[in-house]
């Protein structure tokens, strides 16, 4: 019997493809945001609001990740420059998008005519935390009905987030969600994170979120 030292990260295969995606995106000066949340927190609504608000200012494409259906792609179709729907149902991983899925989605996109790609990950707070896609920023949405304890229960996804959005602010009078406690938990895990409070229903706070995106896209374009 012989022992072979290996020390090799099992997720390396995904990370290699993610790096390749990132190089391709940087070559085309495309900024990419990976949007993650539990099912129903408002990923599609936020994407729709963002598309409407930034239409005419930025060319935005959307990659929709769902276990099944094209419901979300149909919703954003008319507003986006390009939409690719990924269904994870028959893939080895149905619970999260993976870098290889993004690599193949990018082949179907007019990369020279896009400034920003919004990726809607599969609704899940656990699995997407483990897989990088080649994105520039990771955004997590938490909505008021989910409760303020999610950063305590699912810390990893918050640890790596660049921005956290508190959505459905219009429901604040009706639910027991302690905004200060939530913000404390999030910034405790991740002091540099940006936190936005908004409502996709009333559009409150959307402008601030869209300004942040525009700034990020501009900074990324001038970086090179």
């Amino acid at each position, binding site marked *: 019997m012989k*022992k072979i030292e*290996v020390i*090799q990260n*099992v*997720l390396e295969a995904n990370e290699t493809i993610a790096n390749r995606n990132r190089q391709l995106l940087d070559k085309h000066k495309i900024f990419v945001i990976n949007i993650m949340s539990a099912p129903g927190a408002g990923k599609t609504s936020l994407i729709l609001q963002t598309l409407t608000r930034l239409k005419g200012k930025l060319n935005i494409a959307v990659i929709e990740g769902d276990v099944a259906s094209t419901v979300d792609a149909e919703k954003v179709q008319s507003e986006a420059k390009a939409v690719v729907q990924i269904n994870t149902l028959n893939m*080895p991983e149905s619970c999260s998008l993976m870098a290889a899925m993004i690599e193949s989605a990018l082949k179907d996109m007019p990369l020279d005519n896009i400034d920003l790609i919004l990726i809607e990950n599969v609704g899940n707070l656990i699995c997407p935390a483990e897989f990088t896609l080649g994105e520039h920023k990771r955004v997590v949405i938490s909505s008021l009905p989910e409760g303020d304890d999610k950063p*305590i229960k699912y810390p*990893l996804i918050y640890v790596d987030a660049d921005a956290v959005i508190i959505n459905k602010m219009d429901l604040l009078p009706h639910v027991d969600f302690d905004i200060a406690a939530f913000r404390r938990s999030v910034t405790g*895990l991740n002091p540099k994170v940006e936190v936005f409070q908004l409502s996709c229903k009333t559009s409150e706070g959307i402008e601030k979120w869209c300004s942040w995106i525009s700034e990020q896209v501009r900074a990324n374009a001038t970086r090179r």
Partner: protein
Amino acid sequence: MHELGVTENIVNIALTKAGEAQANKVIKINLVVGELSGFVPDCIQFYFDSLSKDTIAQGAVLHFESVPTQLRCRDCSTIFQPQDTMWTCPKCAERSVEIFKGRELYIESLEVE
């Protein structure tokens, strides 16, 4: 739920390394899995048994070394194991902490013949 792809990677790495060492059989794969990583050892073993069939890794034992979560207080730098889900520093009660250990998922070594 995402163990299948991860297990494919484990099988690929093991077969590559065993091939490089001109081994005839993989006896054991030693894996290090952090407590915070969302991977379930039983599930990895289940997929492994099926994916390694008819390869030199068939029948290999997967040994999982679990790494407990360790946090570092951003304020006083104390490294501690959290006692509950609140992640509060036991020394200064600060709740600003970073993950020091517990996210690992790697193959440490192989035992072959």
